[in-house]
């Protein structure tokens, strides 16, 4: 399946895009999204272990499986406030 991933902050700057697509098998995990991103966008490699992944606007663990139609986002540690 084709998964669209929103990127923010330094992750967006490094990838050069606010939204990217990665191709993954059906039922892929969040961890596989992270790995596919780092492979497709080598600039993300150095920060890949620290990237947080959100599915449907909530933090997701690497073991979590993606359902079709879910909204995926990926970003480095937050610094609001």
């Amino acid at each position: 399946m084709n998964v669209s991933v929103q990127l923010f902050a330094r992750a967006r700057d490094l990838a050069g895009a606010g939204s990217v697509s990665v191709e993954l098998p059906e039922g892929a995990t969040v961890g596989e999204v992270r790995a596919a991103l780092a492979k497709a966008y080598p600039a993300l490699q150095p920060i890949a272990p620290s990237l947080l992944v959100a599915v449907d606007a909530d933090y997701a663990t690497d073991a979590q499986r993606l359902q079709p139609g879910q909204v995926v986002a990926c970003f480095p540690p937050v610094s609001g406030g």
Partner: protein
Amino acid sequence: MAESEMVRLTREEIDHAALLEEVRTHAAGAAVLFLGTVREMTNGRQTIALDYDAYPEMAIAKMRSLCDEALERFPLTGVRVEHRLGRLELGDVSIAVAVSSPHRAAAFDAGRMLIDRLKEEVPIWKKENWADGSTEWVHPGLDGATSQSGPGEEARP
């Protein structure tokens, strides 16, 4: 109406006086307003401005769930959180947290919990615009992989 939303993101100046008014009630004996403001000096480096960016849908959801948690944990009579996005100059208010409670301990504790947790959990990021012309996204724990760029350059790893 927007004015009565418990949590808000805005690109305008935060009207923190209005936010504070919204939590005041005859049931409260205490109100606490916290403001985060753009500080000039950080670890000896001079800032000229901050850019705040957010993942808005998730930021709103997370801010709302933090407020719900505060309302569960503390006997609050009101809670509001508003975060500003975009370019902020020195002294500008980036975040306002307003809470009220019958007694002061809960108001202080809830205000502190909300800003502490917001800084850890809500997907908002600030970019430093240093006086030397460089810029830098602030990502706690990512110091080994800083992203800086000079004026007019593209960001690079």
